[in-house]
Structure formats: structure tokens, C-alpha cells
């Protein structure tokens, strides 16, 4: 009798622990939304989703920062995704065994580099390079995109590698046996078969880029203005929150939470997208 009770208690305790992840999500959504509420009621959505950010004048528009987030993310993916998928192709198709395990370590170590360290490197080394090369301040979309490309590289590489490895070996063998070259096999057989997985990899990389804060904060400028060129300073949602949360109160603080809420919704939308893509793949299989 006692034994059964203990099993029951253990089971329930473990269940509660498993539900912590769900509880965590609910808490985060609840508290961020609660703090964002005053911005919606007092400033209003029209004000929040406008281009003017001037807390002293009662303007709390976040479109500049949304633009900054989207442009740096696209830039980071344009630079990082081909490199990452190329690395995954290298790992799965080209690399000899020993090189493969070495290169896997390299990617893992790259994933472990703290974003503040990468940002510091960007600020002390990369920004001066861009400054000298272009005669601009050096900070801005370009610098942030390069940093983000490095940040998304390990994520996209790891997930693409899994997607490429999931393609049955027999598909590739059949193609090679018919006389196709390695590249023809990759282009006509491997990539089409792994496409949903590669898409998931890029989407998750996108999530990483949208949420990245510190590495971008050190190279983005900052400036509360739309970027006019690749090297003009601007702000992203994350950097604006980071830099103003400490010294803001009232509606301004609430507007920063509204930006946090936008970030939350963006990352959730990406998860929904990933799930839709993987479900499609499962049904197709």
C-alpha cells in the first residue's frame, strides 16, 4: 500500500516538473502582456505601430525597431544560411571521417561563443574595419548582419545536417549508380528530399537572429532612425529594450514591454511555422 502511494507521489511530482516548461511559457506571456497593457490602453495601437519614437512628446512608435530587426535578420540569413547549408553539405557529403568529427566540434564551439564576446569582437575589430573601408561610422545593418550570420551559422548547420542525414542512403546510391555525379545527386536528389528540414533550419536560424541582443547591441549604432544605408546606425527591438529599460518609467517602459510582446509573438509564429512544415513532411512521407 505504502509502495503504491510512493509511486503515485513520484509520478505526480515528475508530472509537475514536466509541466514547468508550459507554466514558464504562460508566466512569460502573462507578465510581459500585463506590463505592455498600459501602452495599448494609454498610447494606443496606432501610436505604438507608428514610426515616431519620442517618449517626451508622447510618441511610442516601434516601426523603426521592427524595421531594424527585420533588415538585420534578413542580412544575417543572406550571409549565414548559404554558409551554414554549405557546411552541412560538406559535413554529410564531402568530409572524410576524421575531418567530419573535427568540423562538428568546430561548429559546436562556435555555438558556444557567448554573444557578448562576439559583440565585443565586432565593436573592437569589425566596426573599425568597416569604418576605414567605407568612411562611415562603421556601425549599422552591415556590421549587425555579419555578426548575426556568425550567430546563426551553428544553428542552421546543425539542423541542416540532421535533415540531410535523414535522407535515405538508398536514394543517393540509386542516383550515383545511374552515373550521376555527386553534385547532380546533391542538386536533384538530396536537396529536394531534405527541403522541409532545410527550411526548418533556416526558420530556427531566423528565430535566433530576431532574438539576438548583446552581439547586435554593440555594433548597431545605436540611433533611433530608419537605416538609410548599410552602414547607418539604427536600432532593433532587442537593442532598444536593452538600452532603455533601465531608465524608463510609465508608458515608455510599458511600450518597451509591448516590443517584448512583439518579439514573443514573432518567435511563437516561427515555432508554429516550423511545426506546420514538419507536419507536412511527416504526412508526405
Amino acid at each position, binding site marked *: 500500500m505504502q509502495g503504491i502511494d510512493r509511486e503515485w507521489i513520484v509520478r505526480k511530482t515528475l508530472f509537475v516538473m514536466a509541466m514547468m516548461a508550459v507554466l514558464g511559457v504562460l508566466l*512569460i506571456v502573462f507578465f510581459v502582456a500585463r506590463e505592455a497593457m498600459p501602452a495599448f490602453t494609454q498610447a494606443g495601437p496606432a501610436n505604438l505601430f507608428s514610426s515616431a519614437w519620442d517618449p517626451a512628446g508622447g510618441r511610442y512608435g516601434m516601426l523603426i525597431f521592427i524595421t531594424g530587426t527585420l533588415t538585420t535578420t534578413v542580412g544575417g540569413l543572406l550571409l549565414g544560411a548559404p554558409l551554414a547549408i554549405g557546411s552541412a553539405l560538406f559535413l554529410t557529403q564531402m568530409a572524410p571521417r576524421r575531418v567530419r568529427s573535427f568540423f562538428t566540434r568546430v561548429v559546436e564551439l562556435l555555438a558556444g561563443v557567448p554573444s*557578448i564576446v562576439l559583440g565585443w569582437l565586432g565593436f*573592437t575589430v569589425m566596426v573599425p574595419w568597416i569604418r576605414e573601408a567605407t568612411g562611415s561610422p562603421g556601425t549599422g545593418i552591415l556590421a549587425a548582419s555579419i555578426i548575426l550570420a*556568425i550567430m546563426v551559422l551553428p544553428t542552421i548547420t546543425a539542423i541542416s545536417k540532421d535533415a540531410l542525414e535523414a535522407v535515405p542512403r538508398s536514394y543517393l546510391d540509386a542516383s550515383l549508380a545511374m552515373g550521376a555525379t555527386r553534385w547532380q545527386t546533391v542538386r536533384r536528389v538530396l536537396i529536394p528530399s531534405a527541403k522541409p528540414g532545410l527550411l526548418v533550419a533556416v526558420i530556427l536560424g531566423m528565430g535566433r537572429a530576431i532574438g539576438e*541582443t548583446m552581439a547586435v547591441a554593440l555594433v548597431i549604432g545605436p540611433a533611433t532612425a530608419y537605416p538609410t544605408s548599410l552602414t547607418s546606425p539604427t536600432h532593433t527591438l532587442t537593442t532598444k529594450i536593452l538600452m532603455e529599460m533601465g531608465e524608463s518609467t510609465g508608458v515608455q517602459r510599458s511600450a518597451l514591454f509591448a516590443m517584448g510582446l512583439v518579439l514573443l509573438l514573432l*518567435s511563437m509564429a516561427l515555432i508554429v511555422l516550423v511545426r506546420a512544415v514538419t507536419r507536412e513532411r511527416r504526412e508526405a512521407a
Partner: protein
Amino acid sequence: MSGLEVKTVEEEGLRVEVAAGLCESRDERLERVIRQHIERHKRRAAAADRAFTAATWAVAAVALGILAFIVITIFARGLGTALNPGFLFGKPQAIKEGGGIWPMVVSSFYLAALTVAMVVPVGVGAAVYMSEFAREGRVTRLVRLGADVLSSVPSVVFGIFGMVLFVVYLGLGYSLLAGALTLTLLNLPTVMRTSEEALRAVPVSYREASLALGASRWETVKRVVLPSAAPGITTGAVLAVGRIVGESAAVIYTVGIFVRKIPVSPLQPAAPMAAHIWHTYTEGALVSDWMRIANGEAAFLLLLVLALNLGARLLTRALAKKTGTVKGNE
């Protein structure tokens, strides 16, 4: 074989002049053209294949180059400072030059220890539930969705959430505990995933043997499954330490960015190294040697994270050998 006799053959719109014996027949010519075509195609395919091979090796070289560049540059600029005991174990200075970072080093390790003490039991418990107790269904789907969403939340959002709930609402103030609670949620999905993978890698026959001997499910988990999965779980925990030490955005508004004294109680504010680099960058002008401090701190942080990553792997290997478990991963 009268060499000069020329015939013109016209058939199906194809006109071929044939000098019997010297020129080819229509079929031969067709064959030659087709063969040439195939040869050209093969040459092009081979060239494309070589280009592909070269491109993938080049891409790999770039990725390797990026890591090498990061490590070499950060170490070249800061390792000299970082490995100087006067810097590492020194007191920080607010205005004067020559300050050290000892309270930040302690803060980082303190924060990591507190977080691991919370996230590992909860994460492993959740993983045990998912792999040993739950039947696949609505609950497991909900938990997986929760973990997926949680792992996608940007760290700065974790930061402002932790500030509202732990620092303000629960009244913990800027403190190691508030930061550790925030980072527990941040690291929960990864710890859950690595632990669940480790648990699932334990052969079913182990569990069957234990259950057949009359052990209960929990006894089986405690005595058989968890010990066999320990190497994998430990690796996950060490990797979590690396992430905690490197995290800054979630820490800045929950723990703090600068302290002069070594934090003693978990309820005290602290300044983990990653957050302190940010402080040094933003408040740079306060000390004239701020670049030296941030360079040194960045180098030490990178060294630490690389050591933890490599250490996790060596540890796995050592533990796997000791417990005799076969790990699926390489």
C-alpha cells in the same frame, strides 16, 4: 572502296554526303554527334562536380576561419590580461586604473551553481516523466510544445520577464536568486532535451530486466535507468554551465552589472562577467583602462566557455567508460 565516288543520301530530312570508304555513313555520323554531345555533357557535369567539391571545402574553411579568427583575436587582445592573477583576483576600481574582476568571476560561478542546482533536478525530472512514465498523447505533446516555445523566447525577453516577476513582483530585488530563477526557465528546454536523449539511449532490456525482478517503475528508474543515463545528463549540465556563464541579456535586469564586493548571499545583487562587459562598454569613460578590462574579461569568458565545451566531451567519454554505457553519439 573506289575512294572518289560521292553519294548523297537523303532520308527523313537528313542530308548526308557520303564518299564511300572515306566518309562515315549517316548512322556513324549520328553516333559521332551524339557521342560528342555526351562527352561535352560529361565534361560539364564533371566540372560542376569539381566546383561543388571545391565550394563545400571552401565553405568549411570559412567556418573554421571564423572560429579561428574569433578565438585568436579575443585571446591576442585579452589573454595576457586575463591570466594575470592581479586582474583575475583583483578588486574592481570605479574610477582608478588597474582594477580587477574577482567579484564578477565569483558572480558568474555563483549564478551558474544556483541555476544548475535548480534546472538539473527539474529538467531531469521532466525528462524522466517524458521518457519513463508518460504515454505519448496530449500531455507529452503539450510539454513538447511548451519546451519548443520556451526555447524560442529571446533572452532579453527572459530578462524583462524575470525583472517583473522575480525582481519586482516577488520582491527578490536584483539578486543572484532572481537571475538563477530566470536562467532556470531559459535553460530548462535544453536540459530537458539532453536528459531525455540520454534516458532514451538506455536499452529497453535494462528496464525489462529490472521490472522482471519485481522492481517498481520508480525503483527501476532510480537504480537502473538514471545511473546508465548519468554520463549524458552530466554532459548536458556542463554545457548548461557554459550557456549560463555566457548569458548576459537575461542577467542584466535580474542580477546586476557591477558590484565592488564579492556576493555572499543569493539575495544579494551581483555582476556576472558577461553582464559586466556590457557595463564596461556602456560606462566605459569612467575608467581609462576600460578597454583592457573588457578585453581581459572577454578572453577569460571565452577561455572558460571553450574549456567547458571541451571538458563536457572528455567527461562524457570518461564517465561512459566507467559505467560501461554505450553512448549513441559517435
